[in-house]
């Protein structure tokens, strides 16, 4: 029996320039951004501040999701609204509605794959810091035994600490959408979205489900900012300038995305709209450092080549490629070298454009959010311009699309080089 063919039938993005596929695509065409300066204050004192692409006017109650189930989640989270969890739920609702899949019954034969890096980090971090501060103040007044101190810590973080384990969020979200099939939580850093698409397609190919909803999101909080800032890869002026002379780092982006995938036969039977076929992915784990790519290595080249091989596609056929394009000199250099190495002998080079200048770096959600934008580009036959691409640096030996191009796109590729050396590429093809 031939392999099942996997197609994308639903898209649900949440981004700083629009919630839902139509508003997001409109934002891309209008070259809009929504960059804000986030100030983190503690008792009125600014701790730190950073620019990021912010989602505004988001309210989970606007999406027509079962209120009782949302309240159950809120109760479990001790009244706390976990923003990136809500992004996942809202994105899934949008993608499911877009796909027309009937999920509101127990035998819906849909699976769930979530891709995220660290849901709930912010409340946990703040609770730990708050209590430590309180204990420090108290300690000045009276002695506290180590046993009392540790017990108080344990009681205070029982819920938010355990909640960093992701299975509970898989439970909550599956429950909201009546999903009872084989489901997974994926964390491969920024490449999570592409790993999730591959895992989800294997679920269908292995007959574990007819359809899979894949969702990813991230909320750029102060703890994540501090980490990236200290690594020296966060843009101080909030401008993402991929592959440019004046690239000075990445900028976070709020939001996430969900896509629904299913077996082609299943999609055709129910006359679903089809955005594209997922032809295959390529993955390589560099295994050198967690936060630094190995300049001069060939792991990323391998991931891209594997994606081409697994898709059965000649590299000449790639019309449009969307790289990670973070706007950090070493990462851009590493990425440009890999792309150039793979495609240098092409008669026809793929058009290249990046979306981070529009929506920022959505971290664990970035690959899926950008894959969603890429699928909208494929559908509309438009390669969006790369914003802020004003001073291309010849050392990158790569050329990006500066002004929007209308083109009959057929095959597209999303690539990503993530922390820990999770290098990934995925190929999608239009279906007539």
């Amino acid at each position, binding site marked *: 029996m031939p392999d099942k063919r996997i197609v994308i039938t639903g898209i649900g993005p949440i981004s700083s320039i629009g919630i839902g596929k139509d508003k997001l695509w409109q934002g891309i065409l209008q070259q809009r951004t929504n960059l804000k300066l986030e100030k983190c204050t503690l008792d009125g004192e600014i701790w730190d501040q950073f620019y990021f692409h912010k989602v505004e006017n988001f309210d989970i109650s606007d999406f027509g999701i079962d209120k009782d189930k949302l309240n159950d989640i809120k109760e479990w989270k001790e009244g706390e609204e976990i923003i990136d969890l809500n992004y996942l739920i809202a994105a899934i609702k949008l993608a499911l509605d877009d796909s027309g899949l009937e999920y509101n019954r127990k035998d819906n034969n849909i699976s769930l794959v979530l891709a995220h890096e660290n849901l709930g980090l912010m409340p946990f971090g703040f609770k730990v810091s708050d209590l430590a501060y309180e204990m420090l103040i108290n300690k000045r007044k009276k002695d506290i035994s180590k046993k009392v101190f540790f017990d108080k810590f344990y009681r205070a973080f029982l819920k938010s600490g355990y909640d960093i384990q992701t299975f509970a969020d898989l439970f909550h979200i599956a429950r909201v959408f009546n999903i009872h099939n084989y489901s997974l939580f994926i964390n491969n850093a920024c490449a999570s979205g592409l790993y999730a698409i591959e895992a989800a397609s294997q679920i269908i190919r292995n007959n574990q489900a007819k359809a899979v909803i894949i969702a990813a999101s991230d909320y750029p909080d102060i703890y994540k900012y501090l980490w990236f800032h200290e690594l*020296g890869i966060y843009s101080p002026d909030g401008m993402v300038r991929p592959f440019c002379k004046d690239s000075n780092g990445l900028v976070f982006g709020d939001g996430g995305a969900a896509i629904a995938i299913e077996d082609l036969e299943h999609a055709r039977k129910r006359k679903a709209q089809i955005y594209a076929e997922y032809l295959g992915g390529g993955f390589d784990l560099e295994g050198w450092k967690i936060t630094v790519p190995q*300049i*001069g290595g060939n792991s990323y080249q391998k991931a891209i080549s594997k994606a081409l091989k697994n898709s059965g596609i000649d590299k000449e056929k790639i019309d449009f490629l969307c790289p990670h394009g973070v706007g950090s000199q*070493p990462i851009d*250099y590493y990425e440009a070298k890999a792309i150039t190495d793979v495609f240098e002998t092409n008669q026809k080079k793929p058009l290249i454009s990046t979306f981070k200048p529009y929506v920022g770096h959505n971290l664990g959600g970035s690959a899926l959010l950008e894959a969603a934008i890429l699928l909208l580009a494929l559908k509309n036959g438009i390669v969006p311009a790369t914003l802020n691409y004003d001073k291309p640096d010849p050392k990158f030996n790569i050329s990006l699309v500066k002004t929007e191009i209308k083109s009959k796109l057929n095959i597209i590729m999303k690539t990503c080089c993530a922390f820990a050396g999770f290098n990934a590429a995925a190929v999608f093809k239009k279906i007539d």
Partner: protein
Amino acid sequence: MPEEMLDKLKQELIELVANVTGRDTKELKPDANFWKDLGVDSIKAIEISVAIERKFKVSIRDEQIPQITTIAEALKVLKEALEKKNKV
């Protein structure tokens, strides 16, 4: 680590950095800052780390990579990595 061994490592590091950056070994004074004085960027800094790891068969921690800004700093990081390796 004996002095003569450190001197030998320093000389090897100077040659390695000269090779990666395309600079003359004479320009690589122990405290010359690669970034400020020699125009080394964050890309070359990673290449220097990759070359040190390959040549001396050691592992440099992520956070040490940006610290390698002079020959003196590179020697410090290398010495620590060699000592760690010999301990295991």
